[in-house]
């Protein structure tokens, strides 16, 4: 025992170093697994508040751009409003998007685009009704999914993440279903996976969200096709797409609250139980 203590005392520098490094690797592996990551809370209000203060300062230099964006969005909403009020009332009675989806506006207080896994922090949290697994969109297209919530802030896993996996449709091609991933390291381009070989893709074809997910409403813009990447084995092709959202200059986003989410969750659980 004495020898052990003497050994520790003699080599305390190296031992402390090893202990700290092992601790780091343990923390790292805990957060590298998607399912475990969901259980660890790394979003906290202090960090959020500091980022928010920084954003406030930065915003003064961007007021012009923010104003322009808001004006553009206003114009878009006015156009859409005109269309909606013109259509017959019957359509709205069958499916009223307003009652299924609620959009909570939030501001981006911090975001990254140049890491292997990117996150966005927004200034709305549990107190504002944000929960895990809610979809996040911008005026240009889909942005990501909420993975972590603190009382007043939330972390969003952006599309620029190795776990990002979104069900999409190729709009001009028989509404073919495919999966959107991020396999490049460039924040502007993503990959659409699982395209049947018989499909002819054209540059500029639109990629939108499918109806197979209750995180995002149907038909939200995801990006446009850049080029087809033929599969070496000749089975399912991939395509390089350009995201419609500019992740490097995100300012205002909307969190999508599905009003029937609790109901859907129980349905899914029942379904899973029956399968077991």
């Amino acid at each position: 025992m004495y020898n052990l203590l003497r050994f520790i005392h003699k080599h305390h520098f190296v031992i402390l170093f090893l202990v700290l490094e092992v601790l780091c690797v343990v923390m790292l592996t805990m957060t590298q697994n998607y399912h475990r990551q969901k259980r660890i809370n790394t979003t906290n209000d202090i960090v959020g508040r500091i980022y928010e203060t920084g954003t406030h300062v930065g915003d003064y230099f961007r007021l012009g751009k923010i104003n322009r964006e808001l004006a553009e969005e206003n114009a878009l909403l006015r156009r859409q409003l005109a269309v909606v009020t013109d259509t017959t009332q019957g359509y709205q009675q069958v499916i009223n998007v307003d009652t299924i989806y609620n959009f909570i506006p939030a501001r981006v207080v911090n975001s990254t685009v140049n890491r292997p896994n990117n996150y966005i922090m927004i200034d709305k949290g549990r107190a504002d009704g944000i929960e895990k697994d809610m979809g996040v969109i911008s005026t240009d297209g889909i942005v990501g999914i909420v993975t972590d919530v603190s009382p007043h802030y939330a972390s969003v896993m952006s599309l620029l993440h190795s776990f990002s996996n979104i069900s999409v449709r190729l709009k001009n091609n028989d509404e073919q279903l495919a999966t959107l991933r991020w396999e490049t390291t460039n924040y502007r381009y993503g990959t659409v996976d699982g395209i049947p070989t018989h499909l002819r893709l054209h540059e500029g074809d639109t990629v939108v969200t499918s109806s197979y997910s209750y995180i995002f409403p149907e038909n939200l813009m995801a990006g446009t096709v850049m080029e087809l990447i033929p599969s070496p084995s000749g089975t399912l092709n991939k395509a390089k797409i350009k995201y419609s959202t500019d992740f490097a200059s995100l300012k205002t986003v909307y969190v999508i609250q599905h009003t029937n989410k609790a109901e859907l969750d129980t349905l899914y659980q029942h379904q899973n139980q029956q399968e077991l």
Partner: protein
Amino acid sequence: MNRFFMNIVRFILLVIAQVLLVNHIRLGGYVHPYIYLIFVMLLPINMPGWQQLLLGFAIGLVIDFFMGTLGMHAGATTMMAFCRPGIIKLVSGSLKFDNIREPNMEQLDFPWFLRYTFCMVFVHNFTYFMLEGFSFHLVGQALLRILISVPVSTFLILMILYLFSPTKKVRGER
């Protein structure tokens, strides 16, 4: 006590500057300049090793909390603190540190700071990008990032050290 207070202020200012300013620099996505390493670089030279390790770990962990990379920066700064005595010995040669309490621009010359900064940044970046690369299986890319980020960080750190070195301008060239 004064020195202790000074280090706390340096800790806070560097973390704020890192997360609010420097993290927004992205040239092509490969450049990751880290200036918060200055904190570990300027710790007193004769400080007990275990204290250097713990302080290095602490600033790395705080940065990790901000960046959502739990463990990566902490691992890299701990490695940096561990290698620091060796690096100082390596870059100093026969230089004596009898009356130098912490690295400073008045008592040490530019070539010394260049060698010291480069080695420290390299150890940090190497550990950081390896931790990042191994967890994502992108080792080739990690190496490319090291190659680009080390010179940029070294340049930024030296610039900051010169800007904030209090008596440098008064004394002029030596």
